[in-house]
């Protein structure tokens, strides 16, 4: 009972903080007031039962506590602030209409993901204030020291206050410029969950769930944005395959060898439905394309019957939109599947000079595999050794070790 109450409170926390931030004018006061309300909830709900509308209950209590706090602090003089907050609170309807709650949450999302903040800080701040994760939970997720994450969050908050990063929803005209930063924050959480760069667990199911939760919130808040739907579809489809990404020994399982009967068909179906609806809007974007590729994999009964011509077409489209090294490497794999290993190698050749490619273990690992398939065993061994030297995740290194051994027996 107590545990489920804590989960419930954590889920509602971001929504209540969003409203309190608007009322109090700063994030710290908002979080303090919400923390007070949460303490009361954890004390009262187990005895009296969970209120019918938990978020409204928390908001009402947090508003009272915010006023208490301002009153206490203002014994030193700032009467104007007390009067102002009291007046604002008196004007606020209780409970709040859905449109206000939605706008409050959107304001919080756009503030936490403001382009003037450091990208790492955006992720930490969003997970802390919107998702309600604690500083040490975030630190564990990204394997950063608690102090570093705490510092990132407090620096970001200080910059928001000092530079007056506004607490408002961007206008429709600004939205195309501002939305990518928001989607990128969710993408970092998703990507880290799908393939953790360091640590014992290659796949972080908790992060996949957090990314999906955030993407779902964005779809709810911005139902007309096709890229939000694309992002949610990508999260769902990626999470659907998570159960077979690692074997019982903790080592990665390749897509070709995965037991596809263990994939979450319901999540895939939801992703496909979302994607079909968003594609009808005719505003394609990188997240919709990535989701489409991911869904094609999830829908195929095995590697051979995957719609490779379509996958290659989508990767070419994605390459045109976001010509990153990661997209290129994935495209090379798909081209090799459809047109043979030399075609894949040609795609890699075009980025061989880029430092992001040279320093990325997966670039070398994929190149090694394509060289092996082309019969260039010694080149493959060199590339595998380079990949092994660059890989930071122990599971990745074990997989590369195995391939090196296999290559040795082949030669």
């Amino acid at each position, binding site marked *: 009972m107590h545990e489920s109450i804590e989960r419930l409170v954590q889920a509602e926390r971001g929504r209540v903080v969003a409203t309190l931030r608007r009322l109090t004018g700063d994030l710290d006061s908002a979080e303090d007031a919400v923390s007070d309300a949460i303490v009361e909830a954890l004390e009262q709900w187990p005895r009296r039962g969970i209120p019918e509308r938990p978020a409204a209950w928390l908001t009402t209590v947090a508003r009272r506590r915010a006023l208490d706090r301002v009153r206490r602090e203002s014994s030193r003089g700032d009467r104007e602030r007390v009067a102002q907050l009291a007046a604002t609170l008196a004007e606020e309807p209780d409970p709040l209409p859905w449109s206000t709650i939605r706008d409050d949450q959107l304001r919080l999302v756009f503030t936490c993901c*403001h382009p*003037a903040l450091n990208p790492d800080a955006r992720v930490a701040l969003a997970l802390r204030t919107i998702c309600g994760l604690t500083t040490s939970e975030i630190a564990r997720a990204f394997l950063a020291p608690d102090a570093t994450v705490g510092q990132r969050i407090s620096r970001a908050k200080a910059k928001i206050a*000092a*530079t*007056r*990063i*506004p607490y408002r929803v961007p206008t429709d005209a600004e939205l195309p410029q501002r939305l990518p930063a928001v989607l990128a924050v969710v993408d970092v959480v998703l990507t880290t969950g799908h393939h953790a760069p360091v640590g014992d667990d290659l796949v972080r199911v908790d992060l996949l769930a957090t990314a999906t939760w955030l993407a779902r919130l964005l779809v709810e808040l911005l139902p007309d944005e096709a890229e939000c739907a694309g992002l949610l579809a990508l999260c769902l489809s990626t999470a659907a395959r998570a159960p077979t990404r690692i074997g019982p020994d903790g080592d990665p399982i390749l897509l070709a060898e995965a037991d596809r009967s263990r994939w979450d068909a319901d999540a895939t179906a939801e992703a496909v439905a979302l994607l079909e609806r968003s594609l009808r809007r005719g505003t394609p974007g990188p997240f919709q394309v990535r989701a489409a590729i991911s869904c094609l994999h999830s829908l195929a009964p095995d590697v051979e019957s995957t719609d490779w011509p379509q996958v290659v077409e989508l990767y070419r489209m994605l390459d045109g939109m976001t010509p990153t090294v990661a997209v290129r490497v994935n495209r090379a794999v798909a081209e090799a599947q459809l047109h043979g290993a030399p075609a894949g190698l040609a795609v890699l050749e075009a980025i061989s000079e880029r430092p992001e490619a040279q320093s990325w273990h997966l670039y070398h690992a994929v190149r090694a595999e394509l060289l092996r398939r082309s019969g260039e065993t010694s080149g493959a061994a060199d590339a595998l050794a380079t990949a092994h030297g660059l890989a930071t995740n122990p599971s990745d290194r074990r997989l590369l070790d195995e391939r090196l051994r296999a290559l040795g027996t082949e030669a």
Partner: protein
Amino acid sequence: MPQFAALIYEAPRPTPDAPDFAAYMQGYMDFGERAGTAVVGGAALLGPETATTLEVRGGADGDLVQTDGPYAETKEFLGGFYLLEAEDLDGAVALARHIPAASDGGRVEVRPLMPM
């Protein structure tokens, strides 16, 4: 209304006898017109070749060391600044993005003024 400084880091600036000097000046005149009363102050500086950087070594009464040139030797140099009035950072950025240096290869750094 809060004030922000927009520090103008210019990539090499045309000399007064260069053919593109008039267009360069016009860019700043256009900005002044566009920003209107939001500009509450500012100054243009002579080039980095006129800069002297100084440091007093060994405490406030220590030895004065003067060096020819700007503090940071980079391609872009601090060419001047505007003091802008804006509601918030988004407002300041919306103005400052029209400063010519932001789009001609230089950079513009926006900072809030310390409240006094």
